[in-house]
Each structure stands twice: as C-alpha cells, then as structure tokens.
C-alpha cells in the first residue's frame, strides 16, 4: 500500500509529466485511500503545476508543456473537485480577465487563467476582443477583486488606460486591483496609466495577483 506522501508526490508527478491518465488514476487512488480531496488538490496536483510554472519561468519548459500539464491538472481536478467538502467556497480571490478590445492573441491570457486557477483564484474569463466597458461590468456583477487585462499589440494598449479612466469616472477605482500584461506592456507603462500591477508572464501574474488581493478584506 502506498502511503499518503507518495500518493501526493505522484499526483504532482502526473502533472509534471503531463500524464492525464495518471492524474486521473492517482486522484482516484487518493480518494480510495481516504486522502482529503482538497489536500490532494493543493498538496498534490497544484504542487505539480507550481513546479511546472517555476520551470516555465526558468525557460526549462515552454508553452506546449505548460498547456499539457494543465490538462493533466484539470483531469485530476475533475475527479477530485466533486469531493471537496467544507472549503469549497474558499478562494484566494476572484478575478475577471480578458484580452483587450481589438486583439485576439489569447495564449498568454489563457496561461494566466490556468496558473491563477491552480493558485486558488476564481476566474471569470471574458475571452478576447473584450470591450473595455465589459471588463468593468463583469467586475462589478461578479464582485471581483482583480481585473486582469492582456494585449500583444501596441495599438490596443490604450484600452488599458481607458479601463483605468473608466473605473475612476465611475467612482469605483478603489474597488478593484488592475493587473496588466502582454509583450509590449511594461512596468513603467502600468505605472503611467495608473494600473496597480504588471506581470511579465503567467507565473509572475500569480505572485502579482496574490500580492494585490492580499491587501483587500475578503468580500470587499
């Protein structure tokens, strides 16, 4: 019989080796062994995803590997999530994310989504080519803590400035943290437009998002 620690390590390993079938099998084994579903997720699958994120940031793995690891992660989550009790409502924060109006490049945004979800955020994904007003509406309607905006083109960066201005105009700037990213975006641009944070890649987005929502009272 394998012990709990080995099973958790194996869950992480299934994500790192991008093995969907293994993630499912070991998730089922974890449940059979009486390992709490929440623990199997955070102590097993998510640890694997964090390791992949670290490898991605170091340049040891690239976009395909991160995407395939996330498939293994989600396959395991499909098995485990229905069995999470009690802590089901616990999230680190709620984020509305999307690619700014006029732009359809969404691989980066999708990587941010999966890394934030793995880190415990609830994500409302608005997709791509998202009108600025829509970011605001979704943030308000969902009681979000954070608005994440991405673009790959210089011509659409102005949408990020417009969003911040719109929030100010609506008198709700203080209700949300604004996090921006994308190849042409920089920390100084983020500062210039009055955004709260900038992240250079999907992994950096997790620590930036955690830091930004950490300053908010839950449910604010």
């Amino acid at each position, binding site marked *: 019989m394998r012990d709990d620690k080995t099973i958790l390590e194996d869950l992480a390993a299934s994500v790192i080796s991008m093995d969907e079938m293994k993630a499912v099998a070991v998730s089922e084994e974890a449940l059979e062994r009486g390992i709490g579903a929440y623990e199997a997720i955070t102590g097993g699958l998510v640890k694997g995803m964090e390791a992949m994120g670290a490898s991605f940031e170091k340049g040891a793995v690239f*976009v395909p590997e991160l995407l*395939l690891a996330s498939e293994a992660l989600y396959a395991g989550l499909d098995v485990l999530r229905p069995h999470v009790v009690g802590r089901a409502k616990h999230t680190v924060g709620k984020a509305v994310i999307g690619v700014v109006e006029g*732009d359809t490049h969404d691989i980066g945004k*999708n990587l941010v989504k999966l890394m934030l979800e793995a880190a415990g955020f609830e994500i409302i994904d608005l997709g791509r080519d998202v009108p600025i007003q829509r970011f605001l509406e979704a943030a308000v309607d969902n009681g979000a803590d954070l608005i994440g905006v991405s673009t790959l*083109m210089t*011509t659409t960066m102005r949408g990020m400035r417009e969003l911040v201005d719109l929030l100010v105009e609506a008198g709700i700037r203080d209700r949300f943290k604004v996090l921006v990213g994308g190849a042409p975006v920089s920390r100084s641009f983020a500062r210039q437009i009055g955004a709260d944070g900038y992240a250079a890649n999907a992994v950096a987005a997790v620590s930036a998002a955690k830091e930004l929502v950490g300053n908010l009272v839950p449910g604010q």
Partner: protein
Amino acid sequence: MTGVALLDRLRSAGHRLAFPVGGLVGATLTGTDVPSNMRDAGTKFRSTVAFVEAFGPDVVFYMGDVAVEAEALGARVDYLDGAMPSVVEPLLVGRDDLAAVRAPDLSDSRTGVNIECVRMLTGRFPELTVLAQVVGPLTLASALLGYEEAMRLVYKDPDFVHEVLERAVTDVLVPYATSQVEAGGSLLWIGEPTGVLLSPPLFERFCLPYLRHLIDAVSVPALVHMCGDSTPHLGLLMQTGALGLSLDHLVDLPRAAQRAPEGVLLIGNIDPVVVMLNGTHEDVRRACDDLLDAMQPYPNFILSTGCSTPFATPPQNVRTLMEAAHKWAV
C-alpha cells in the same frame, strides 16, 4: 539589386546599413488606414514609396501581415478595430478539413495584392532590394489549427501537425514566395513569430525542417525573423540555411554574433516599443549608437528594430535610426 548585391553593398558602403522591420509607418505618412493598405496594392505601394522616400532604408519592406496566407486558404480573417488582420477562427479542426484544402489561386486573394505590390516596387526602385515576404511554416500551421490548439497538438497529434506543416510549405509558402520573387523580390523575409513558443527540441522537429525546406525551394536568399527571446533557439536558427536572422530586442546581439557561422547576417534589434514608439529621438540615437558600438567587431550586421515598427512610431525616430547607421563608419 539582388540579395547577394546587398551583401556586396554591406561590404563596400563604408557605413552600416539599416532598415526598420515592417512598413506600417508608411500608412501614417500617406494618411491611410491599415485595412485599405492591406486590401489594395496601389495604396500599399504608395505607403511603401512614401516610407522609402522619407527614410531611405536599405531594403524595401512592404506592409506584410501574418494572416495573408491563411486567408488565401480560406481562413476567416478580421480587421478588429481597424487594426492588423488576424485569423479569428481555425480552418482545420481535423484531418477531413485538411483533405478539403486546395492550393490557393494566389492572384485571387490578398496574396495577389502583395505580389502586385512587389512588382510595382521593383519597377519604382530598380536599384534597391525589394523583400518578398511570407509567414513561416509553423506560424501558418498554427493559424490554421488555432494558435493554442497547435501548441497542444505537437504533443497530442504530432503526425497531423507534420501533415499540416508539409502542406503549408508545399501548397502555399513555396508558390507564394516564388511568385513574389518572379515579380522582382530579391530577398525572402520569413516571419516565424510562433517558433519562440516551442522548446528547442520541439523547434527542431516542428519548425527547423520546414524552414529549411522553404528556404531550399526558393531561389533567393532568406532572412528569418523570430520575435521574443529566441536566445535558446539561436543555434537551431543558424542551421536553417538563411542568409540572415532578424532578432528581437531581448536577444544579446553581440553574443549571438560571436556564435554565428561566418556569412550569417545578424539583423536587429532596437526595442520597437520602449525606444522606437515611446522614446525620444535622443533615446533612439543612444540605443542605436550603443548597439552599433557593441557590434563594431562584426562585419555581417544590419541595424534594425527588434520587431515590427509600431504604427504610431514618430517618423523622427525612424529617421534617427537610419541616420545612426548611415553615419557609422566601418
């Protein structure tokens, strides 16, 4: 002037050569919008002429885009918000879709616009190198499969990806490049932005062989452009058979030059956003001079931007880049 003649000029000019990547700034000079330039050869031609006359680049670079070949195959393309055309829906979901694809009639699509534009530019500037331009095989295959889906398929269905890559090169890219060459294009620019998303081992399987196939099949020398930090891919890029590599601002160009085989041109790599778009002309001059200084030991270098020069780049900044190079004695 042929691609080879460009090399001769490189050696005999007595100063550095330069050209900014892309021709978008030409549209601001003629006061035309992107969609008009993309759809009409005459408009694109006039914007390119305005660019050449304003800035004197050492190659003629018409306004290209990454969607033109996919569109010729039937992919749905949109000009969101009057911006650059982009493929909004994958054309190929399964093998049946691939079976239904036919080699396109190049004159019947925006490929025809660009071929005509090359013809007009060669006529107007017989003494200059006019670039033929294609998207790279991996980027075309990704546009057809869905950019993110392609990144998954390299693991989940590699055979299918290889089939799409093969058809991309054979059915579209070689014929399209050849038509532009026949129209007078004397150097082939291959834009392969998605290459940087793959690990080097996957790049070696899914990008390198197809770049080589394309480059071998076309009768003029090629310049391969890859955006982003391509430092991990440099060794493989240097095996493509390309005459030159256009590299983005994140790459240490002098270090790349140290490892480049003799005869390989390095092109780049001023930051197109922080410096060209948002910098003052003094910022541009400083960045160019610093790079020109660092590249002094390397004869096979052309000053350029790291990636496409943004639409709203101040013309003075483009002028400054050109002057910096043309005033730099070698």
